């Protein structure tokens, strides 16, 4: 089964199966990785599912919309490869994608 690799805040990496149609946020929370709070449940409203995407995979993802951009702008930890995991819907061809969970904004 295709999978994504997710690194939590302690540096531990997990391989998570891709169920097409789910978001990266769902995949990470369903895998039991507690670091990703995802407080709003995927409404693009809270920025607590902030992840960094490996650079060469960024272009494969759906483009960022204004709401996501605005929320990420409030994070102290935004980088060029920042995305909100709730806005990334997974497909089989995302097999091998690597993401790491960004530090928590206070």
């Amino acid at each position, binding site marked *: 089964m295709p999978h994504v690799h997710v690194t939590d805040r302690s540096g531990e990496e997990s391989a998570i199966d891709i*169920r*097409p*149609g*789910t978001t990266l946020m*769902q995949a990470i*929370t*369903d895998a*039991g990785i*507690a670091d990703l*709070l*995802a*407080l*709003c*449940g*995927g*409404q*693009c*409203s*809270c920025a*607590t599912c902030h992840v960094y995407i490996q650079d060469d995979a960024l272009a494969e993802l759906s483009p960022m919309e*204004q*709401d996501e951009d*605005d*929320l990420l702008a409030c994070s102290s930890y935004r980088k060029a490869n920042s995305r909100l995991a*709730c806005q990334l*819907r997974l497909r089989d061809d995302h097999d091998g994608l690597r993401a790491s969970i960004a530090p928590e904004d206070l």
Partner: protein
Amino acid sequence: MTAQTFKERDYFTDPTVLLDPYGYFEEMRPRGPVCQLETHDCLLISGFEECVEVLRNPADFSSLNSLASSAFPLPFKPEGSDISEQIEAHRDKYVGGDLVVTFDDAHHTNVRSLMSRMFTPSRLKANEVFMRDYAGELVRAAVAGGGCELVNQIATPYVTMVVADLLGVPAEDRTRFEEKIAAGQTVGSIENPDAPTDMSAVEFMGAYFYGYLEERMANPGTDLLSELATLPYPDGTKPDILELVGLAVFMFAAGQDTSAKLLGNSMRYIVDVPGLQQQLRDDRTLIPWLLEEVLRLEGSSKATHRIARRDTKIGDRPVPAGTQVIVALAAANRDPRRWGDDANEFKLKRPGIKQHIAFGRGSHTCAGAPLARAEVTAILNQFFDQTSDIRISAEKHGKPGARHYKFEPSFIIRGLENLYLELTP
């Protein structure tokens, strides 16, 4: 009195639990964060970590009983270590079994994907002018009259009109829905234990929403219903119109009582916590902090429910397939292990406050939470703009420190039946 000697009160029907659910949860807490009830064959989960664990484990816990509750036995005999198929086969036996709040797995993921675009910040921003103007109108009339009954006179029509405007429900139908909703029984009524949740208002509105969606499919506009009528599922397939009717009605109805109660609960704290009203008047940026602390202490939903569909665990405790659990959001939000010894006290800017679970957690987190926050903030601002002092009527509710309130007779909803205010311009 020790944990072993007191007689357990019935969470689902006891009027004293209704009046003070928090006292009941404190009474139960010594039995552990997950405990078996004596009154019903289900587990009560009062621990914060344990509630989050269950809410974030949709693979092992079905949401089918989330509206029907854990008060009733399963309509089948669970067989084996995985009863997922048995649960699905009995979906039609459950109140709300055709609503997104009870869906599991891919069906839930698909329908939820449609909802995830409904209450985004930009959508709510576009609706802000309506919220402000309509709230302004309602508050102005109340101030001119010297006061109001907040919950029914202001909060309920306000939240109905806001969500109607957002969805694009025609003005002439809005009052019809409002009347139907107001006439219906509360969800999870303790006064009707055999049928605590009545779906007649949802069914009544369904016929109207079918018409709206059919019309939007033929002539899409820019409102939310048009978006709903035209959006595909993530796999590219199109939802059935009946699925969309169920979703649209649910979005319309689900936020009514809960958002209206949030305004009532917030106002009670604003007036009754000494100094808080002035503090908020002086610094409106504190309103979001107020709301989060009120949501933690007095969220509008006391509990949701799940069924273990596989043999699983909560913490170290084995939980066999077929076990029903009460996920006591209101208890978790006052769990001293998570919030400290002052968990029952109101504290503005409490550290980690945004992690409360008043709106749930995980894949079923309340989709309308951003709307609830935005609409209650908008109307509170109007109250502060148009008054110099807000008081709770001592005649109706007693003096500060000795207030008496009536609460919605529901084992799901936590909110005031009414709140009489006196308003000074």
